[in-house]
């Protein structure tokens, strides 16, 4: 077909109009097929950012709970106590020394520290008050035994030896307390993971629906591309690329904010270390750090959110194309 000559019979406004060379040179670079800055796109970025932030905070909190619960278990599990009761006719100091010797000889023990009479007295001070003549009171003496990490000493035989040589000594390996602690920590871990799974599910659903909402505004583009002969994969590819970038942008904003927040918490925690409040917080929540794994998990979530957004857009495009065809 020849398009070099204007249609003969046509008069103005189609005749006499020619594109100026300058206009031809200054044609702007081709606009993206999917518009970049739409209101729906900005709303989607905001939804992805907020949901990624919430999911990242939940992930970090769940990791902290898991870490703190494990720390509690490990700390309590590494300590046992021997109590030596005062009994008429026996020298309690000699019994304490014997118990210390026996315990030191046991495998897996790294430190044995008997409480002195004064330290033992201080333990009962909150109940009995200060300044009492404690010599007259039958106050038991405690021996704190630290175990090597991961060691499982033979408490049964240690108990037997102690019973034979120091009958006034009794060993408490905190089993009941540890079992309760383990149950509590396990519950905390399960609850943390459950909340995380729920938040992730809500995140995926809300991002999916927000993507579909944003896609609805783009339906005319899908239709026009379809009618001018674009293959389904071309149309889906255009939207997938666009929404992958939108999702990644939103994820980076939300995940980045969470990373900054955790970083600041960690820095504040380090700054407060040594203070009374800081030590209490550390005792309860561990060192308030989500660790390298936590930060990696957040980065992974950013990528995941971008992929969810891209996949949701592709799915919606394919459904739209099915409806058109």
């Amino acid at each position, binding site marked *: *077909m020849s*398009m070099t000559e204007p249609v003969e019979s046509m008069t103005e406004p189609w005749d006499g109009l020619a594109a100026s060379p300058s206009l031809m040179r200054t044609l702007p670079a081709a606009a993206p097929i999917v518009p970049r800055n739409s209101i729906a796109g900005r709303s989607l970025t905001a939804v992805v950012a907020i949901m990624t932030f919430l999911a990242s905070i939940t992930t970090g909190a769940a990791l902290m709970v898991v870490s703190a619960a494990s720390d509690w278990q490990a700390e309590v599990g590494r300590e046992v106590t021997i109590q030596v009761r005062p009994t008429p006719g026996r020298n309690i100091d000699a019994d304490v020394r014997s118990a210390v010797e026996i315990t030191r000889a046991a495998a897996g023990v790294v430190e044995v520290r008997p409480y002195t009479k004064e330290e033992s007295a201080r333990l009962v001070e909150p109940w009995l008050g200060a300044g009492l003549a404690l010599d007259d009171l039958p106050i038991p003496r405690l021996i704190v035994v630290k175990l090597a990490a991961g060691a499982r000493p033979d408490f049964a035989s240690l108990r037997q030896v102690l019973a034979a040589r120091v009958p006034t000594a009794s060993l408490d390996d905190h089993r009941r307390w540890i079992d309760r602690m383990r149950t509590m920590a396990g519950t905390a871990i399960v609850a943390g993971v459950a909340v995380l799974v729920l938040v992730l599910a809500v995140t995926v659903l809300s991002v999916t629906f927000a993507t579909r909402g944003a896609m609805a505004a783009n339906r005319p583009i899908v239709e026009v591309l379809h009618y*001018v002969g674009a293959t389904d994969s071309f149309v889906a590819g255009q939207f997938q690329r666009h929404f992958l970038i939108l999702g990644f942008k939103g994820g980076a904003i939300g995940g980045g904010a969470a990373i900054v927040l955790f970083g600041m918490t960690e820095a504040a925690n380090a700054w407060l270390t040594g203070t009374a409040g800081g030590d209490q917080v550390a005792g309860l929540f561990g060192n308030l750090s989500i660790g390298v794994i936590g930060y990696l998990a957040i980065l992974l979530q950013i990528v995941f959110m971008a992929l969810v957004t891209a996949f949701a857009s592709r799915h919606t495009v394919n459904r739209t194309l099915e409806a058109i065809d």
Partner: protein
Amino acid sequence: MIRFENVGLRYGPGPEVLRDLNFGIDGHSFQFLTGPSGAGKTSLLRLLLLSLRPTRGLISMFDSDTAILSKDGRANLRRRIGMVFQDFRLLDHMTTYENVALPLRVLGKDEADYRAEVVELLQWVGLGERMAALPPVLSGGEKQRAAIARAVIARPQLLLADEPTGNVDPNLGQRLLRLFIELNKSGTAVVIATHDIALMDEYDARRLVLHEGRLHVYD
């Protein structure tokens, strides 16, 4: 080029809106598709554009049975057809130039290769000075010409136009008809769906008349 044999179309469980269509469209031909409102003109155009599948019958296009074509195969056939929609369907975020160039972009052509061609066509339809304008600021006639330019830029073998003069004054309608006639002279088969009797009287061409779902051909 295109052949319909016993083609019927119904939407869902409803009655057939098109019945027993038997006709052909030859290359380089020119025809009006007409009939009262609701007679099924747009449905027939959509069948021709492969954006609807017939409920029954055979549609053969460019030597291919459309019923057995893959999705990509249908997309490839659609590239040989240009469509001018009644509501133009220009993309508002793209300039006139970009809208017209869209079919070439979809074909994966490099912008440097098609720039001169698109500019030349825009000049030909009188939009040389409106290349950088966005559709919302174009007049109805300008939008119509941009839509026509987009439909013919990839040099289709068949041009379909749905009520192309429905939104313009009679004078502009005549100019658009002349544009279609020129395109037909350059080798493109043209089907213009219209119920504008005055427009059809302007040019002696084959008439496909839809009435109560059936097609009557007046050569």
